[in-house]
């Protein structure tokens, strides 16, 4: 008899991809060549021996791979591998493997590893793919922006063709012909000042009889609509369809880094959310709008099953809500007539932050350019009632706290809104603040940006460096704590149906939203999306880079768990909720979740220290 008798190992490997592709004989040979080590958390890191690279197979416990800079590359649990990059590349080991939970690790020699790769193409392919994936994930925060397929940068043609604005139109046309492109970015001292497209050459140059020797800046489209390199493809599509244009210069800061054309986007397949928004924009009456809105849960499920990032799902869903809101306003204006004065439809709370999920309530208000007379007041009352009840019928339930434009309390002139915010900021009563924290995450969905800016600028001027107010806000956001109990076990809550679970929204994401809001208000940052707030805070140096990345990671992770959990609830026909049952989680996920909550806890402590010292 021999090691083929070691049933537990053979069984484990037999069901483990890619070992499941091996023949029985090589699987047994492989088992016979394994060695088994046990790593305890107190060791800190797995001792990786430079001279003996090996394939490590995690049998139990939890591990974390970090690169030279300490950035998280991967988290590993049962059935995961490490050590293969240096086996494949022959390069020195540069990553470190931290031990998060004690565990057994199987190790395979390079000789055996290579002979298995030769025997099975699937085995070989698996590790090559894993290697490529690992490379992409090096430096996760940066990489995420560049690699996720639905980001602009994944479609954009690299190093854009540019021409100085003083060159001639003919030179430009020659460049475009030679490079076989339909557009050219025009720069003035390396800064983007315009774009020249085939359409410009036709409509401006030929139709107007321009001389080819004239400078490009006379023919180009000035100050074109641009988009940031980190934007979603979906957002580029929206920008193009709203303005009926076909080319968008892509900027990284001020520097043009590429162009994205509608053809590029079409090639990247049709987009479900965009089709839904298109459908929303085509509807001629409220009843058909309501029936279109029935597709939103389906859209959410398909986004969840496509494993999109939680932040992106929030932005996509909110874009749909925004489109619905705008359509409802326009349809009702067709009935009520033009508004007697300029106004903004404001979104607060989750719609404001662009992080809507399933079963969101409405939180909105109306900002009027001036004090309405009786006629105007009647008009806006009718409009807001119609839009709010339209939203309700589309699945966005009335706000239980009555923060809605149809409530006359939240339908005010710019001056009165400014006063209301001013009162909150001057006399930060805890209860009023808890209520008001919803209002600080505001965004205009409809109406002139300048009107909104007038409000936001005033609000931020009042909050910025206002110690008493910020201490009040901070205190408010510390009334709830993440579910970290003694021994860091989960503290469970009961929801209405007597099912224990962790409230991922109120004990997780909401706390991070609160923290980001206090810091953003203190620094006068205009962003209201939590991820963007955190990034802006990091760039301004208000929060340290490591803490900011941890917080952003925790936010994404908890939000992702919440969405994935809602996906499961949906598939099993349960009611959608924010409660997660910890017993369903693997030890690794439990560990990650505990870590995420720990980050929230630490950030709360930081907040207390920074804003509540003297109070």
């Amino acid at each position: 008899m021999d090691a083929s008798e070691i049933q537990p190992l053979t069984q484990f490997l037999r069901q483990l991809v890619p070992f499941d592709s091996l023949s029985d004989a090589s699987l047994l040979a492989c088992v016979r060549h394994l060695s088994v080590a046990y790593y305890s958390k107190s060791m800190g890191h797995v001792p990786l021996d430079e001279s003996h690279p090996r394939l490590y197979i995690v049998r139990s416990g939890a591990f974390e791979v970090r690169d030279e800079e300490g950035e998280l590359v991967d988290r590993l649990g049962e059935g995961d591998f490490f050590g293969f990059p240096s086996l494949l590349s022959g390069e020195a080991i540069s990553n470190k493997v931290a031990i998060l939970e004690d565990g057994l690790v199987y190790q395979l020699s390079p000789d055996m590893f290579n002979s298995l790769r030769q025997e099975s193409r699937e085995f070989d392919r698996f590790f090559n793919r894993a290697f490529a994936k690992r490379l992409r994930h090096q430096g996760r925060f940066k990489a995420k922006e560049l690699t996720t397929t639905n980001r602009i940068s994944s479609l954009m043609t690299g190093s854009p063709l540019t021409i100085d604005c003083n060159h001639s139109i003919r030179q430009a046309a020659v460049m475009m012909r030679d490079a076989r492109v339909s557009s050219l970015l025009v720069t003035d001292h390396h800064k983007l000042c315009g774009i020249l497209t085939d359409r410009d050459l036709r409509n401006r140059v030929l139709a107007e009889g321009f001389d080819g020797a004239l400078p490009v800046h006379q023919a180009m489209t000035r100050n074109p609509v641009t988009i940031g390199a980190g934007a979603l493809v979906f957002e580029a599509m929206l920008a193009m369809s709203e303005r009926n244009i076909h080319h968008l210069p892509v900027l990284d800061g001020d520097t043009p880094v590429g162009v994205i054309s509608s053809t590029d986007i079409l090639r990247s397949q049709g987009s479900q959310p965009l089709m839904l928004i298109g459908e929303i924009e085509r509807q001629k009456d409220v009843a058909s709008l309501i029936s279109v809105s029935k597709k939103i849960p389906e859209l959410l499920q398909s986004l969840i099953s496509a494993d999109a990032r939680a932040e992106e799902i929030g932005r996509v869903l909110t874009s749909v809500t925004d489109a619905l809101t705008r359509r409802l306003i326009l349809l009702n204006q067709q009935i009520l007539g033009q508004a007697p004065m300029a106004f903004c439809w404001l979104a607060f709370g989750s719609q404001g932050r662009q992080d809507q999920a399933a079963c969101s309530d409405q939180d909105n208000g109306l900002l009027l350019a001036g004090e309405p007379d009786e006629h105007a007041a009647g008009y806006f009352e009718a409009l807001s009632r119609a839009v709010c009840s339209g939203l309700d019928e589309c699945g966005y339930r009335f706000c239980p706290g009555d923060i809605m434009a149809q409530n006359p309390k939240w339908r005010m002139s710019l001056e009165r809104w400014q006063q209301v915010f001013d009162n909150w900021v001057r006399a930060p009563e805890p209860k009023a603040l808890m209520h008001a924290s919803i209002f600080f995450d505001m965004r205009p969905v409809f109406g002139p940006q300048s009107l909104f800016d007038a409000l936001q600028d005033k609000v931020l001027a009042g909050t910025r460096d206002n110690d008493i107010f910020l201490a009040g806000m901070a205190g408010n956001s510390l009334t709830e704590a993440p579910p970290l109990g003694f021994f860091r076990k989960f503290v469970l809550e009961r929801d209405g149906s007597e099912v224990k679970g962790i409230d991922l929204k109120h004990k997780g994401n909401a706390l991070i939203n609160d923290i980001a809001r206090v810091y953003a208000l203190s620094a006068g940052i205009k962003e209201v999306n939590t991820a963007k707030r955190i990034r802006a805070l990091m760039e301004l140096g208000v929060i340290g880079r490591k803490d900011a990345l941890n917080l952003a990671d925790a936010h994404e992770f908890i939000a992702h768990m919440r969405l994935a959990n809602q996906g499961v609830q949906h598939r099993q026909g349960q009611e959608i909720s924010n409660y997660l049952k910890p017993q369903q989680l693997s030890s690794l996920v439990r560990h990650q979740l505990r870590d995420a909550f720990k980050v929230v806890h630490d950030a709360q402590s930081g907040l207390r220290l920074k804003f509540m010292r003297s109070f």
Partner: protein
Amino acid sequence: MVSRAFLRPRLWWRSRALDDGLARNFVDSQRVLLSATAEMAPMLALDLEMTGLDPGRDQILAIGVVPIDGGVIQLQGAESVLVEIQGSVGQSAVIHGITDRELHNALPLADAMNWLMQKMRGRILVAHHAPLDLAFIRANMSRCLGISMPILAIDTLALERQRLLRVHEVIQEGSLRLGASRQRYGLPVYDAHNALTDALSCAELLLAQLAAIGGVRTRIDELVTLCD
């Protein structure tokens, strides 16, 4: 049990009294390993399947061994043998699952003891509830090879009892069993009662225990018991 302080002289005297060169060699090598760390000392995790629990009357059916070198289990050296018995496995088959039919190609007891002697050479034994397994080994070695030698072993059950007693006053029935002990370290669940699997289970448990005690740098003389 012999006090740790006397282990070394005791083994020295006992080895002087042994006629058999192989046995003396074995005892001497064990004595040398006493001052080594768990990382440096080669070890051999071992498990026996028997027809019963009485070393005087019951017989060995199967032996599984798994070597541990440098604090790492080496499956390349993992082996097991079936052992010929007098009569039938009888009711014990219910536990170990070895039937009379399978024993057809088993090793004669003397060959099995010689094989084990080779495997044990230069290694510290590791077993869960070591006194029982070692009593069987010593009884059968004396019967077949005419050698009566002391054997050092690390008893993972004894280590676990010490550890639990430090935390709890009373140890619950069954909580020291191999499976239950493994569970406390988050080790995977294995099917019990196959000599090789149990030897591997025991080896893994020892590594986990070492990690909890203070790592592979713990000295062997702090871990072993002497079966004499």
